[in-house]
């Protein structure tokens, strides 16, 4: 493998982590959706590059799925939901953005340390990919934990799943059927979550999860 193709793969995967940080930082919903679309585009590029250097044509299909669904269909749908629910307002986070970013950096460092330690014998490209994808997964999880708005939790979930796809393509020999089924399940999850969003909104006039907590009688 030439060092250039390695560098490009490295760059794209690192770009995904960077966009994850952008997501963590962004606190306006519409902008967040845009960043998520960017996230998916970078993912699609990364997967397509993997397809090229691994000579695995089926990965192009994965890239295409990522591009069509995650970079176009889902952001468009989310945008329509947000407009329809008229919640373009600023979103609040639980802990301060600065603290969240610091924690995110810690998570990235952690995943680097772990992944580089446990895969000493593996292909360097796969190692880097795994480390970056674990970071993306952890950052997605962090996003779900720190955000209170249902829409941004959905975006956290979707970007977490992007990390999984990155890991799957980095490992050679991942069957296509698994990727298609993952993509499909994410789509289903999106539909279900979308329906729930509307139902929650209908019932509580908000998609702030705190309303749900109050409804369940949680004490704060």
């Amino acid at each position, binding site marked *: 493998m030439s060092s250039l193709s390695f560098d490009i793969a490295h760059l794209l995967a690192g770009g995904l982590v960077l966009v994850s940080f952008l997501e963590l930082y962004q606190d306006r919903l519409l902008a967040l959706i845009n960043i998520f679309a960017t996230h998916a585009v970078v993912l699609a590029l990364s997967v397509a590059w993997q397809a090229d250097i691994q000579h695995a044509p089926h990965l192009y299909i994965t890239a295409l799925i990522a591009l069509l669904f995650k970079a176009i269909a889902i952001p468009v749908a989310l945008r329509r939901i947000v407009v329809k629910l008229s919640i373009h307002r600023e979103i609040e986070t*639980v802990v301060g953005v600065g603290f969240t970013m610091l924690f995110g950096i810690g*998570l990235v460092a*952690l*995943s680097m*340390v*772990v992944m580089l*330690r*446990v895969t000493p014998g593996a292909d360097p490209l796969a190692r880097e990919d795994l480390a970056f994808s674990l970071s993306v997964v*952890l950052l997605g*999880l*962090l996003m*779900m*934990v720190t955000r*209170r708005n249902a829409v941004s939790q959905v975006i956290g979930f979707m970007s977490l799943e992007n990390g999984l796809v990155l890991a799957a393509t980095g490992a050679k020999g991942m069957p296509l059927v698994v990727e298609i089924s993952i993509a499909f399940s994410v789509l289903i999850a999106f539909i279900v979550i979308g329906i729930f969003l509307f139902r929650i909104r209908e019932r509580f006039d908000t998609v702030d*999860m705190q309303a*749900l*907590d109050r409804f*369940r009688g*949680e004490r704060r």
Partner: protein
Amino acid sequence: MTVIYALYGIAALLLLAPVVALLGGLPRISDILYGSVLVVAAALCAFGLNGLLLPAQSSTVVLPLGLPWLGAHFHVDALSSFFIVVVNLGGVTASLFALGYGRHESEPRRVLPFYPAYLAGMNLVLLANDAFSFLVSWEFMSLTSWALVIAHHREPGTLRAGYVYLLMAGFGTLALLLAFGLLAGPAGHYDFDSMHNAHLTVGLAALVLVLALIGTGSKAGLVPLHVWLPLAHPAAPSHVSGLMSGVMTKVAIYGFIRIVFDLLGTPDWWWSLPILGLGGITATLGVLYALMQNDLKRVLAYSTIENIGIIFAALGLALAFKAEDMPTAAALAFTAGLFHVFNHSLFKSLLFFGAGAVLTTTNTRDIEQLGGLIHRMPQTALAFLIGCAAISALPPFNGFVSEWLVFQAILQSPQVASWGLKLIVPAVGALLALSAALAATCFVRAFGISFLGRARTAAASNAEEVDVSSLAAMYVLAALCLMAGTIPGLFIDTLAPISHALVGSMMPHQTGLEWLTIVPIAESRSSYNGLLVFVFVTLSGSIGAFAIHRLASDRLRRGPAWDCGYPDASPATQYTASGFAQPIRRVFGASIFQARETSVMPGPGSIAPATLAVSLRDPIWDSIFTPVASFVSFIADRLNILQFLTIRRYLSLVMAALVLLLLMLAIWP
């Protein structure tokens, strides 16, 4: 004959289950079902006999079921053939019994579909040749028998019995799962053929032994894992109780033999210590429990525990002798254990069927409510008496032969090299001797109180003889008990290939000896001739009876029975079951069961009745299960708060756990 034929039989049983579930409403469906199960079980039994008598033909089949990279391996060899015979003989007689007994079933649709499935599950366990199929069949067997246990769920106590059974079954399977995991090793070879070649380190082998003892012991009823057995076995319909007690515990023994004798490789002498110790304790405690009970089926269930103890003690001896390089003694102990497996399946099924017959006609299992049944149900009484004599190890019946062989094996212990065994084996022998004597007491009590004397209640005095097929089932078993007792040499020789395969040696050939004598080691040491004993007992008994009737009076007189000198007093003045057990309760129960008797004597002039109340405590429940249960419920109470978190907190918990694990991975050297 290849294993595929047995699988056809099992498939037929499995097909019967949904068919019966769909057609459950038809009239006479129970006759049709039990009839077809009888035929299939007879065919499977013939298959097992064929495999046992022509042992060279072991065969393997791999079906594309189960785990994709493993498949479902099925295999039949001499050991599984023997247990197939035991299981399906039980299946045949239970189906025959149920042809009559099943008509009294109040809710047949809760019993019928599970019955063939249960039988199929037990057969599958015996054929499985990889850990996955074994565990799946094992769980299938547990679940179907659980469904049968809770069939009469409206009776008090049944649901609790089912709950305890389900817990213990799950726990046992968990232990087996871990044992197989260790045997499979890091490479994960889950088929038994690869496990043979796994050479475990000493510590791992000991761990597998303990796990196998827990896993199979909890199903077989080894103390202290026996607590579910006396609850669950009596709760099921009687033919199923017979199967559970007589047969399913044997499937557990099969699992133990398969893991410890077959898969685990060459034994060390200390492996036998826990098995011997637990076997001896189980035998003694089981029969002591049985003596304290007044529920007929529960007496039988506790007596099953006793017999399981004897079998485990014999297997422990076999393991010890095998490790000490004493092949003849090992073969003797192993054959004795297997022979007792067969014998116990015969007489325990017989006794449960007898109890079922009594239960159908009197609607009670409490022996204090019975009495005098020998006049109302003479046929059942005779069969039950034969069962009692066999289980009490009286010659010329089969129980004597196998227990005698066990004691012959124990007498070999002075030749053992290691001092640990030299000391513990005679102690176990003493425990077994004690339990044999107590078992006789127990069955004198069970038979005497329920069948002899005068009827204590209206239900007992109006009892009627059961139907022909139930009687036929009991008499088939009684005849087999007598047969195995009088020509044991034939049975011992049939078991020889198994002992050759698993302990590497066999007992001397028995069938060629004169007068059907059996000689376990050498004629100068010991020999037994069941046929002569039988002929002697029959002749002397007949001559005695003839002489009495001829010389004394040929007129049949019926006098008051057990009237204790008060001819017209109420039946309540007879010896009671509790009264009969009182000496034993005072000697052993006071320390083991903390038996306390509180008697209240009314003062002079008072017309209140004197009362005697006995309180017993179960030491196993008190010392093990109650603390564990309260600990679990304490933890559950503490963790209950986790049921009511918000989504974000759940996510945070997941993330915290993930980060923590990753941190451990990063920091771990």
